[in-house]
């Protein structure tokens, strides 16, 4: 049986998962995702400020998952990738709107809004980012 996630643990990360809100260090210029409370490079000299990711990046590596964790079985086979964002930080996300055989390392991708998983049939639906091939230039 899929296990239920804590409501609050999902809710408190909405700004990151829906909108890509994070923080950066003004002292060294490094961007983080997810947000950090202090810069591991500058430590006491950290100057943390908010920023929002552009949502564009490229695939650093990927895999096609055939044996899924609970709650993802219907999506099999699905692609998991590490994406390097334009601003520098890397994150792990599913790729969507692409066939597994068409994925390449270095492929440019952009953020999409998708269902990630759900808590059984009667629990809440978890939404968040996945990445897809870039459709067209966007302002």
């Amino acid at each position: 049986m899929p296990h239920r996630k804590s409501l609050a643990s999902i809710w408190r990360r909405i700004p990151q998962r829906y909108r890509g809100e994070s923080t950066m260090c003004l002292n060294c210029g490094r961007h983080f995702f997810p947000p950090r409370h202090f810069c591991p490079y500058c430590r006491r000299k950290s100057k943390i400020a908010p920023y929002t990711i552009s949502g564009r990046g490229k695939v650093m590596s990927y895999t096609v998952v055939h044996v899924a964790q609970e709650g993802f079985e219907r999506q099999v086979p699905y692609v998991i990738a590490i994406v390097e964002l334009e601003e520098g930080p890397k994150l792990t996300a599913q790729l969507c709107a692409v066939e597994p055989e068409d994925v390449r390392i270095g492929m440019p991708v952009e953020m999409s809004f998708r269902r990630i998983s759900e808590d059984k049939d009667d629990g809440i639906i978890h939404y968040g980012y996945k990445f897809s091939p870039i459709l067209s230039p966007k302002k």
Partner: protein
Amino acid sequence: MAGIVGYGAYIPRYRIKVEEIAKVWGKDANSIKKGLNIQEKSVPAVDEDTITIATEAARNALSYAGIDPQGIGAVYVGSESHPYAVKPSAATVAEAINATPVMTAADYEFACKAGTAAIQTCMAMVDSNMVRYGLAIGADTSQGRPGDALEYTAAAGGAAYIIGKEDTIANIEATYSFTTDTPDFWRRAGQEYPRHGARFTGEPAYFKHVRSATEGLLEKGGYSLDEFDYVVFHQPNGKFPIRLAKRMGIPLEKLKVGLLTPMIGNTYSGATPLGLAAVLDIAKPGEMILATSFGSGAGSDSFAIRVTENIHKNERPVQMYASRTKYLSYGEYAKHRRKIRM
């Protein structure tokens, strides 16, 4: 006067052909294709629903309009396939586009016309200065009962409209609605699939309401049909809007651009908004658009829209989504539409 400040479309990339569905039920695909004037329909991915479609369309609309989402004071999502029975789709969409928290939001349902009802609400709120911008979205991932005639047409897609008074790309000069209690199509609470009145959905429902609303609009606004360069009618199949246009003496050329159902199916609450978006994608300043939705149960909202000189290129036009296709087998379709229990 309220108008359209920005708009955006979204259609999932998966398709299933009429042949693929007909084969499963032993039906003759050609007679269905001819009878409904439909070739294939869009199907959402496993991880897409009304909320994700509405969000993608809204993001495209924001990108087109170039406005600060914090200026949006109202978000309405019209759909007959909200993922939750209780918990607003509109709140999730609003969070995802950064329009929260100082705003109002609600979900609408009026079969296939909930999206245009949302546009009307936003117009009223903008005209009364309650909000600077209102966001109205029509989006659906509609379901047809396996084996039912609706299975060939029930599709997925949506379009979003930012309604405001400043820098409009098209002004909504008039709107007119026509509503009665007509039981042509429904889905009871807790039921998975809708039921419909078969041929009863035609004359007393679709044709009566769309025509009445359209004629009411012409009379109210003092327009003649000839003034309109484009006409968008709700399109439950590819046949009804053409039949109505013929009856009303509207040249099919004017209907063609906004008639998407033959290639993507009936996107329900997304249908008229998407048809209108396809027209705006190519419309020129000064051109006039007539758009009339239809929602079973039953009602129609009709709009007279004049394109302004602010109209500009849409980087993500309807045709780009319509031509992005990946075909599914019926088995894959059943998996996507959760017809397979896991």
